[in-house]
């Protein structure tokens, strides 16, 4: 069975502390101003009838990734487990992928190439969790293989109410927000 990596993000557990952001930045040596993941706090209603959702967001590693289709050099590609990656040696920094991404998941690295979340594939290949998942104090993040019915991510997506962001794009994103 072909692997299909995905992540479940539990918006009820998450407190939006940004530990995922800092762990990602140090794990992946991101430059100042470069983010592969970030926190969104969304408040609705009027005082005092308010509700709030907190999300740790990152690349959705879409099954139909427009960024890969938009990339003129083949730098953006689909790697093992459906992970959308950028081969920096092939990237010219043209930003076509940035324009095509509905989630704002990419940025231009100071060294001229486009950078984004890799699901820490370098760690996953060694049997480790992505850095954000490993550090998350609230255990809001669950990474795993959607193709494996026994995986924790599949169990969560099947047992909990969830949503993807911007389903209307038809990109089939692989980040599932548990609500």
């Amino acid at each position: 069975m072909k692997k299909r990596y995905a992540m479940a993000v539990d918006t009820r557990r998450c407190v939006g502390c940004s530990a995922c952001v800092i762990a990602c930045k140090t794990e992946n040596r991101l430059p100042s101003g470069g983010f592969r993941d970030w926190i969104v706090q969304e408040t609705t209603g009027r005082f005092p009838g308010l509700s709030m959702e907190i999300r740790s967001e990152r690349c959705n590693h879409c099954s139909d990734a427009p960024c890969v289709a938009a990339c003129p050099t083949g730098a953006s590609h689909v790697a093992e487990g459906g992970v959308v990656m950028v081969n920096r040696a092939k990237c010219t920094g043209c930003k076509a992928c940035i324009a095509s991404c509905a989630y704002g998941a990419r940025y231009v690295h100071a060294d001229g190439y486009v950078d984004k979340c890799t699901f820490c594939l370098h760690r996953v290949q060694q049997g480790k969790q992505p850095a954000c998942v490993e550090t998350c104090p609230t255990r809001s993040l669950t990474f795993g293989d959607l193709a494996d019915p026994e995986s924790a991510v599949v169990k969560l997506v099947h047992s909990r109410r969830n949503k993807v962001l911007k389903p209307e794009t038809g990109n089939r994103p692989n980040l599932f927000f548990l609500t």
Partner: protein
Amino acid sequence: MDAITRRKFIQIGAAGAGVAAVGSGLTTRWWGLDGDPVEDPGTEGDRVVATFCELCFWNCGQLAHVKDGRVTKITGNPDHPLSRGRLCPRGAGATGLLYDPDRLKRPLVRASKRGEDVFQEVSWDAALNKVGEGLLRVKARHGPEAVALFTHGFGGSWFKWFMKVWGSPNIGAPSYAQCRGPREAGYTLTYGAPLGSPEPIDLENARVITLIGSHLGENMHNTQVQELADAIGKGAQLVVVDPRFSVAAGKARYWLPVKPGTDVALLLAWMNVILEEKRYDAEYLAKHATGLEELKAHVAGKTPEWAWPLTGVRPELIRESARFIAAARPASLVHPGRHTTWTGDDTQRARAMAILAALLGSWGRRGGFLSTGAMPLAGYPVKGPSGTVRPAADKPKQGGFPVADEVLASGLCDATKPGFAMYDMKAWIVYGTNLIQSLPAPQETVKAIQGLDFLVAIDVLPAEICGWADVVLPEATYLERDDDLAAPRWKTPFVAIRQAAVEPMYDSRPGWWIAKELGKAVGLGEHFPWRDAREFVETRLRASNLDAAELRRKGVLAGKRIATCEEEGAPPPISTESGKIQLHSAELAKLGFDPLPSFYPPEEGPPGSFRLLMGRAPTHTFGRTTNNRLLAEPYPENEVWINADAARALPTPVKDGDRVMLVNQDGARSGPVRAKVTERIRGDCVYLVHGWGHTARGLGYARGRGASTSALTTRYKVDPIMGGTGMNVNFVRLEPAERSA
């Protein structure tokens, strides 16, 4: 065909993208003939050093990854019971402290008038001699007790020892009278002992968690936040009392947006409902508590309808939430809070919370408050202090604050004013606490400093307090030093070790070395017989029959889990004189205070002003981390939260993102700061995360960013029971930033 198309595109693109792309482009790598590599950023350490964190005072276990002599990243130590393998952003961002370009690099001696912030770099010998002379001169004229130590942080242990053998009891930490002190007094009066840190609470097994002004989740005490999330995962419900729609409020079943300063009224109304409707644990109280009848009489008539106009919380909401809290007892945890110095009646509020916990029967029960234990450790065999020492001079000459069980940092500052206390403070040693921000009323702190004979600051960064010092000693960060062993009370007793991951940078030195050399400089060398912190710790471990090598490898050694609650066979930990929970406090009555908490309306501010509230962001530990450029990335500066309707109604309406100045009732100003115009706060208060608005020249990143809560805290209200400085008693106006430039 495809390749040719791409080549064309790259040639076109290269004209704009730069020549380098063409130069390096025509290689096999460029064309991907060697495939798409999965690049490893290479941050996994060649060496991994187990230690514990100092970005806040929770002291989580960490693993520092070291590669080519640099710390590349820091991860949680899975064996450590406080981090359980996970870190908050601050812990993960500690490399931002280690590699902060603004660190203090060499010892400094003041070269012009005090406070002008002009210093000369000197050798350690010269600096230590200067400190020795300064302290000995004060000792000769005024006695050793005229030296005060202000300290915050684990490394302070070495300087506390210095003070003991030097002969002064005047050791104060702002973490008491400016933070958790009222809570400690309130719970001590009720149950017999302070809660301490980490708090012995069982969040993970609670079914209902009630937060009163505690913004856990933004206040990022790692283990507590982990347990909070686990509890939510298991279906626990939250009740949140906060003028602000905090992150926790966003997850709550009930949010009670209480008017600031009226929490006691709400607590009395809750107790009224629980007592009137007999929802309390009668059997538990009969067995463990005294004063139930007095309490019943005291809250009679304090109905939700009574509390409504005082608190602004609808009576149905008060009644319903009271029933909800009671229904989950005893696994109904009223979180005791931590930063509790709000309005000067704080011990009484803490008492009300402690009494509520007793009504729920949660003290000593699973999902409530637990018994904890510490790992027994042998001390280092060393010659202790000799001679008698005058009592601490942290209180006014005529006395006061009878229930304080730690020295008041604010009191030591007061004692610097001639004639205030039994004797005057003449010299300060300030370790790791920026008193300009950590004490209220900075104008008074500065005045006290001006009257000192001598001030030495020991710190990692050039905070404001360093600018006022006569000598500044640069300490190595916790990642560059060994320290004493940590063995706090916990559900599973444990011992953790701090060990240097890398050598100290610049000419900074570890605290143990500074304290030892200081001891030598004042003729007390014999009290510092250890070679270094490593030998100190190993001697203690050997005498405690613990394996030092294993501890060094793992970072932590766990003891046996103890019985923590009644369900595990432990009786409720009540250590009052009578052995009973004091619902009614005869001790307070004897001291002339209310034996049961009463509501006193808070003072109102001038018309058009907002009560200034302050709190925490998960990425920061007040002013200590605001210069950390890594942590600044997700949270670059604080914002002033203001209610959307209130912002619109201002004489000059404020829009989200506008820059404003904050001006308090005494004309003190802070900012410019960005306004966060939001539904998430009441209209009668504004909110700032504490620790911003630095003015110190050396803080290259933080200086001038955001607004300082301290600068706006020109007033404070002292808790008469224990001396805590209630700081939520200042009121501010908002002015457009341009006008006040």
